[in-house]
């Protein structure tokens, strides 16, 4: 029962846009040396996303558009109409045939896109990837943050809510979802180090990015493991599914939640105290950052692309490379944490 | 005599390129049983469809109770009390007997809701009228053909029926079931209802009907009280010429080693220790009641039924574990139900003909179109299959021609033994004679040994030199066809019940 990829931030609606009348990304500090004028050439850069038409990637498209307007490069975003690895590969094939200068890609399946990305690089096309830290065939992999650090942050909040003891559950959209599993890895590692009295009740639950499946799986797990008092959520829909479960079953203050979520999806539950903490990042900024990196790679600024690079975007001021990882893997610190107290600051 | 219930006056019905009915006068009186005889295409189906309002006609007049009716459609026919039982019965196999019976009434009453009690009661009444016992709650799909037919008759009689038309009602029935059907038909007649029968089987026509009308080429050629007819007269009227009743004369020598020799053949409980010899050129008839084991015996000889015992072909012992074994040994089998077991209805004649002898039309691994067509053409002419070309689908042929395709197909494999199960079921009389003649010729000229399984006693007497009767898995009678009379065999068969 594979649900359509809902991914994150499905609540990012068009209604939220007027707040960013001048563009969705804060570019007051952005690099000025990457515009078409500065480069002396207009590059064509395509951003390929997992699936077209969902809110998360709609917002990413806004970032791409803004980049185009700000810099004058020929940039656009494409994605398959159904979340499907083969369809995404086909789109990349088409882009190679068109002869674009660079491809920014958010792979649906890392394994599936490796060969076609290798082909792209063989043709001299610059490849920048996002949400794919284990991808080999890319010039640079830019992650909004270190996945383990993101997960550790979720656990830090959950552990405090649970008072440092008790059992918890963890969810992922799919067991093959690289980044979500790394978040949970990071969360579990943080728990082992800082909250030794806590433990994971059972293996992570697979919820297919569907809030109703989250609800059913979590409900079932709570029946099976009645002493569970916490939930750490990987996929966005868990915040809605867990929130509804806690609200409906009256489990407020008995079961705590910390996980990926947006104010529009889970704000109501945050407000009512059913859940405690949600965390997200802004795809528009990530897209802007990927395209910036692509232009830098195309304009002989490769030497600058390394740990410590400042892209001039919030959360991407000082990129890092994890110890032992390949130097083309770059992390920002681009996450945003929301609690009941600061949720009013975010209107999407 | 009273006024006719329904009367046609000089009715002509044209189809593109032909006259299906040509100036036909026809009457049916209340409470009489009329038989309609004629070969396929003679116009009898067209007549039924006109009487039941399905077809319009081009010239002439139709009168109900002596009054001319214009615009005689299906509804008018039903209103006049005319009901047709089609060969497929038009029943609902997944619904219960009671519901099948009650649906018409409930529909005509224009009900919105269904009362299960009333439904059951209507069903019970309908069956009671025919004085038969069938489980009202059984789904029709689980009933035997005979019971389904009775349900169909009972349903037709639910409304104020005055004329019941039955299209080939005995085709799929066994002898005993035919007797039961006739008893029911006489009962219907006793209630004042007229019955119009369409049949191929002359014995049955002569037995049940009071009046016989024979059609040929769209015209009524003979009509009269049944007492004035015999089989020869009907046949002559239907075909326009005499069909000689030659018998099969076997000139072989029964001291010679038999072509097929079977000793102690058993297949489960259905065939028990059968001994059987077929000599070259012999046609041996096999009859018996349904369930006597005759079909199982044939299936065992064709490798379709696990069996024990000894089978020798020209002295060589055979192991028949599969159809392939049997075909390889030179045994051919033409099944009873050519629709489901023999023919590919949506495939052209040529492909149907070649299906069992595909090796003869190939070059290397590929099918050779020219050779295939040549073989097909040869079969079409050998078997005298009436078709404009070999690309016509088997489903478009008449029953007799379909049967010839199946037989012709097996002859292409050059068999040594041919087993025919009900070779002329549903085949009209002219066509039947052709098939018989062809089988006899083959046996005489090629030394083919034929085992002919049939319920049709005259067919066996005409074509076989020996006739075997089977009962409860054993052969109980071995008769010389030259010296045996039809009634004798009927008597013996009845005695087996």
């Amino acid at each position, binding site marked *: *029962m*594979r*649900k*359509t990829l*809902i991914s994150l931030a*499905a*609540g*990012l*609606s*068009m209604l939220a846009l007027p707040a960013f009348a001048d563009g969705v990304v804060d570019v007051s500090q952005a690099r000025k040396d990457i515009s078409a004028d500065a480069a002396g050439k207009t590059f064509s850069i395509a951003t390929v996303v997992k699936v077209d*038409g*969902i*809110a998360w990637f*709609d917002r990413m498209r806004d970032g791409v558009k803004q980049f185009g307007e700000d810099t004058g490069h020929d940039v656009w975003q494409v994605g398959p109409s159904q979340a499907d690895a083969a369809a995404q590969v086909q789109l990349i094939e088409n882009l190679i045939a068109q002869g674009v200068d660079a491809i920014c890609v958010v792979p649906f399946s890392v394994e599936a896109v490796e060969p076609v990305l290798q082909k792209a690089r063989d043709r001299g096309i610059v490849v920048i990837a996002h949400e794919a830290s284990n991808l080999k065939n890319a010039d640079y992999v830019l992650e909004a943050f270190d996945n383990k650090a993101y997960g550790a942050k979720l656990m830090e909040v959950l552990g405090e809510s649970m008072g440092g003891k008790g059992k918890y559950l963890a969810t992922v959209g799919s*067991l093959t979802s690289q980044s979500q599993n790394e978040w949970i890895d990071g969360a579990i590692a943080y728990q082992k180090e800082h909250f030794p009295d806590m433990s994971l009740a*059972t*293996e992570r*639950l*697979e919820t297919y990015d*569907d*809030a*109703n499946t989250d609800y*059913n*799986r979590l*409900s*079932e*797990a709570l*029946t*099976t493991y009645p002493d569970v008092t916490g939930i750490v959520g990987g996929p966005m829909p868990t915040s*809605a599914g867990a929130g*509804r479960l806690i609200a*409906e*079953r009256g489990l407020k203050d008995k079961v705590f939640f910390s996980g990926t979520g947006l*104010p*529009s*999806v*889970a*704000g*109501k*539950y945050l407000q009512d105290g059913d859940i405690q903490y949600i965390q997200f990042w802004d795809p528009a900024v990530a897209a802007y950052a990927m395209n910036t990196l692509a232009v830098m790679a195309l304009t002989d600024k490769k030497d600058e692309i390394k740990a410590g690079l400042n892209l001039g975007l919030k959360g991407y001021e000082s990129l890092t490379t994890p110890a032992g990882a390949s130097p083309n893997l770059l992390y920002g610190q681009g996450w945003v944490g929301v609690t009941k107290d600061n949720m009013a600051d975010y209107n999407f | 005599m009273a006024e006719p219930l329904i009367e046609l006056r000089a009715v002509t019905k044209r189809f593109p390129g032909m006259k299906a009915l040509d100036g036909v006068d026809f009457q049916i009186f209340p409470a009489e049983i009329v038989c309609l005889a004629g070969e396929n295409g003679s116009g009898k189906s067209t007549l039924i469809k006109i009487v039941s309002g399905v077809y319009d006609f081009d010239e002439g007049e139709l009168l109900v109770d002596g009054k001319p009716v214009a615009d005689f459609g299906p509804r008018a026919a039903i209103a006049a009390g005319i009901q047709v039982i*089609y060969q*497929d019965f*038009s*029943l*609902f*196999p*997944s*619904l219960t007997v009671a519901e099948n019976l009650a*649906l*018409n009434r409930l*529909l*005509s009453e224009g009900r*919105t*809701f*269904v009362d*299960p009690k009333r439904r059951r009661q209507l069903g019970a009444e309908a069956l009671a009228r025919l004085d038969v016992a069938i*489980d009202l*709650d059984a789904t029709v*799909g*689980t009933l035997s053909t005979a019971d389904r037919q009775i349900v169909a008759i009972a349903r037709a009689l639910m409304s104020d029926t005055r004329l019941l038309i039955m299209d080939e009602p005995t085709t799929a029935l066994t002898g005993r079931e035919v007797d039961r059907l006739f008893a029911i038909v006489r009962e219907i007649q006793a209630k004042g209802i007229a019955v119009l029968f369409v049949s191929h089987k002359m014995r049955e026509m002569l037995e049940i009907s009071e009046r016989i009308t024979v059609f040929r080429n769209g015209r009524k050629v003979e009509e009269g009280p049944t007492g004035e007819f015999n089989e020869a007269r009907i046949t002559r009227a239907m075909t326009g010429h005499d069909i000689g009743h030659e018998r099969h004369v076997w000139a072989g020598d029964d001291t010679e080693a038999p072509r097929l020799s079977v000793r102690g053949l058993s297949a489960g409980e259905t065939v028990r220790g059968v001994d059987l010899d077929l000599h070259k050129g012999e046609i041996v008839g096999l009859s018996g009641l349904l369930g006597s084991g005759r079909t199982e015996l044939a299936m065992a000889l064709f490798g379709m039924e696990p069996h024990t015992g000894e089978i020798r072909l020209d002295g060589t012992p055979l192991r028949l574990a599969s159809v392939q074994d049997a075909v390889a040994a030179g045994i051919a089998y033409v099944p009873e139900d050519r629709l489901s077991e023999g023919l590919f209805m949506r495939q052209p004649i040529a492909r149907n003909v070649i299906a069992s002898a595909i090796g003869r039309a190939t070059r290397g691994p590929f099918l050779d179109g020219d050779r295939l067509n040549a073989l097909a053409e040869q079969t079409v002419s050998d078997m005298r299959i009436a078709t404009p070309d070999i690309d016509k689908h088997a489903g478009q042929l008449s029953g007799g021609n379909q049967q010839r395709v199946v037989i012709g197909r097996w002859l292409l494999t050059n068999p040594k033994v041919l087993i025919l199960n009900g070779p002329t079921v549903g085949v009209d009389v002219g066509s039947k004679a052709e098939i018989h003649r062809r089988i006899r010729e083959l046996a005489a000229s090629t030394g083919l040994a034929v085992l002919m399984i049939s319920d049709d006693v005259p067919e066996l007497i005409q074509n076989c030199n020996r006739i075997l009767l089977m009962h409860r898995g054993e052969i109980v009678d071995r008769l010389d066809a030259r010296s045996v009379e039809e009634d004798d065999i009927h008597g013996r068969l009845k005695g087996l019940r």
Partner: protein
Amino acid sequence: MTAVSKLLRRSETAVLAILIVVMLVIGVINPAFWQADNLFNLLRANVVIGIMALSVLTVMISGGIDVSFPAFAVAAMYLTVIAMNAAGYQGVVLPFIGATLIGLLCGLANAFFIHTFRMIPLIVTLGSASVVRGLLLGLVGTSIINIDRMPPSLIAFGSSTVDIGGSKLSLMIFIYLGIAVLMWLFLTRTMAGRAVFAYGDDAESAKRVGFNTRRTVYLVYGLAGALAGFAGLLHSSMIWLANPRDFVGYELDVIAAVVLGGASIFGGRGSVFGTILGVFMLTLIKNSLIIMRIDNTWQGVVVGCVIVIATALTAWRDRKALV
């Protein structure tokens, strides 16, 4: 035939027996299965899939197949919620009538193509599903309506419960059962319902007997669409959000449940009670994998095996009954 042996011959009996065995097995593996909270949640999970299954049942009895109901459900749900938001309307009855009507219209469109052009239902419904989903996403919107914009009246309705021994049973169960009873009455006690069976059994005979087959086709597909539309909005009100990409993959689950419940894909056979059991069987298996502590990687295998075995058992039993 005695009443008992008749009962044993019914295909529902076989499904029920398998169901009880499966429940006992799960209960042995983990006694927590029998907790009221868990059972109530199971029942709840039956509601939407169950109503959809009843819609598919009708189509399958008529000898057709419908793969468009998830698309119709999603369209009815999403359009209704958007309309409610646009109008600022807070109510329940009118929106459900609206969603049902949207489904009905879509279903009648199916019937139009199937009847007028004698098209194969599978092709028609595949096409209409694609068109409806495409139009919805292309013209109406792609973003999920989350709890922050869901009409509170719908949420309140979908979360109404009755307290039984400290556990909350969703009242939606009773809506499902109510619809099931109505469908049962329709299929077994009305001429229109019997027409569906007759049409599915033998369309030509149904015409000869005098059924209005055109009306039957429109009724079957219209009803299927209406039920799907209703189920769609109910789903949304029960999960407190409206996702325009929801119900993907429901076609197979629901058709599997209906077949599991003894309906024939060739038409003419099927029952409301069997379908309810089939749906329960499917949700039971799908929602008891964690309770049975089955490893993630084996869950798909277990679901597939149970469905195949259960269907094979019923089919085998049916074949024996016919012999």
